[in-house]
């Protein structure tokens, strides 16, 4: 379902930046330039931003103001980027963060066993 508020009874029509294209785990998505990466991901219906190192538990946006670090992802190859306070730019490459990297745990184990 649509997550973007098009018109708000108090704030009126929502002003947006220029539409930009970016990818998340290889999937091509669009968002508005300058909005938090997390906002664009939410609009695309994505909830899980990362899995924790030890217990492999999913995490998503929690505080939305850059304090809790639950929303960190790998952005343009850099891990631990707080997506709720990092502005979206054209061509960004966003990836789900597993522990501190981009390699899913199951694949990693397979690799180790092989």
């Amino acid at each position: 379902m649509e997550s973007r508020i098009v018109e708000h009874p108090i704030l009126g029509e929502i002003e947006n930046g220029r539409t930009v294209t970016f990818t998340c785990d290889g999937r091509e998505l669009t968002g508005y330039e300058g909005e938090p990466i997390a906002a664009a991901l939410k609009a695309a219906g994505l909830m899980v931003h990362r899995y924790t190192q030890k217990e492999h538990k999913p995490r998503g946006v929690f505080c939305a103001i850059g304090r809790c670090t639950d929303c960190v992802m790998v952005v343009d190859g850099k891990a631990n980027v707080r997506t709720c306070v990092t502005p979206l730019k054209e061509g960004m490459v966003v990836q789900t963060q597993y522990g501190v990297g981009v390699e899913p745990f199951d694949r990693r184990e397979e690799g180790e066993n092989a």
Partner: protein
Amino acid sequence: MKRYDLIVVGAGPSGLSAAIEAAKRGLRTVVFDENEKPGGQLFKQIHKFFGSREHRAKIRGYVIGQQLLEEADSLGVEVRLNATVIGLYQDKEVVVKLADEVVHCKGDAIIIATGAAENMVTFEGWTLPGVIGAGAAQTMMNLHGIKPGQRVLMLGSGNVGLVVSFQLLQCGCEVVALVDAAPKIGGYGVHAAKIARTGVPFYLSHTIVRAEGDDCVTGVTIAKVDEHFQFIPGTEKKFEVDTICLAVGLSPMSQLLKMAGCKMEDNPRRGGQVPICDAYGRTSLAGVFVAGDVSGIEEASSAMIEGRMAGIAACEYLGFMEKEELAAQLASQERALDGLRQGMFAPQNRGRAVAETEEGIAVSASLLRHGYISDDEIERFPGITHRAGVHPVMECTQNIPCNPCQDACPKGCISIGANITSLPVVVESAECMNCGMCVASCSGQAIFLVEEDCGDDTATVTLPYEFLPLPAAGTKGDALGRSGQRVCEAEVVGVRSAKAFDKTNLLTIKVPKEYAMKARFFRSMHN
């Protein structure tokens, strides 16, 4: 090292107000804030504020934020954004983390106005994506134009939980329940009532058992708790939701003060660890002042006054003002602050059960328990009277610091008197001209205009409406009662929107006359 007369940490309502007062008197002032944009909590608040005219009542929070910023700007206050203060030392040295450098600055005086952080609660599944803080919900919907979820359960019935629930409804989310472990609603009754009448159920003495879902929230189970906050088996209720929103209190962000060696105290009335300070925000360290939520959780209106006082006190400390002048300048601020700290929700009444209003009227038990005043309780309040013709009905029944309704009426139909916490009273001798200003000005959306008998067995009720789509005249639907239950059929016979109403639309509905005192919300047939 850069030097300033005054360094303010935090660009929320208190920090900006402090900087404004200091800059007015010639202090070289800088404000640091960790965010990309200034304003603190204010820009997320889209409702009309309480208080009286001197507190900028009935103006929406974000507009107050814009006004403060413009004032600070015109006075030449330097506001540094994306600037997190990570250290404060006794000699008034401040360590600031900017984008990719760490700088040290020194201030002859320092004002800490860092506000508060949200509290958390834990339950099974609380770390699942989809469990968010109320502040996060506000940030997403009011700053970034994103709905936090489609179906939301709110935990916490303090003013934050209530205000955010209403905002969720305004941006088109469904709020399936408002839940609180306490037996009574913590926030203002008027905030609760405007949610309840849209049909949101309140579950007091309930809390969350678990959040369901594997990768993200797909549901939530709540259960009733006994007086020791233990779950009562067999009382579980399950809701399908995609979002669980937590509004379980705020704690002062006082770490910097502790670091600097300020004398601190643990004060539950102020919300936790707070610096010991006097009425002007002077801490145990000479030249270090505090203002706003960091020195005790209150609200934005009092934060602004505290900020002004700390700013003025800092001027005196630095010799920009004589002692006698200080007292004179602070007197009016103190009076304004005192006005806000009265009534049932005043800091000194926190945690106390108030059974009667200042007027000696029994408070509505249903309002505290269910979020709405029951039909048999409503008549005992002085805002409710009956007469021929259109007249105001003020369902404002708790002593809160608020009086825009009194100022709004050009005909003098509404009286609160000198004490701004008194309940609004209908002035029987005045004649209402149906202008609607009282309905639109009421910060609590608690005023209705009622014509009890239009002569054809119908009545009209005019109510405040801040939702989309706005029904057009002629739309048919249901009238809902205070509880949000359908009471009868209704037709919209008038819609008024005016600049002076500041985005509160006035909907007039026609109902059978026996429902004149029951119909309080409208739902069109399509919803």
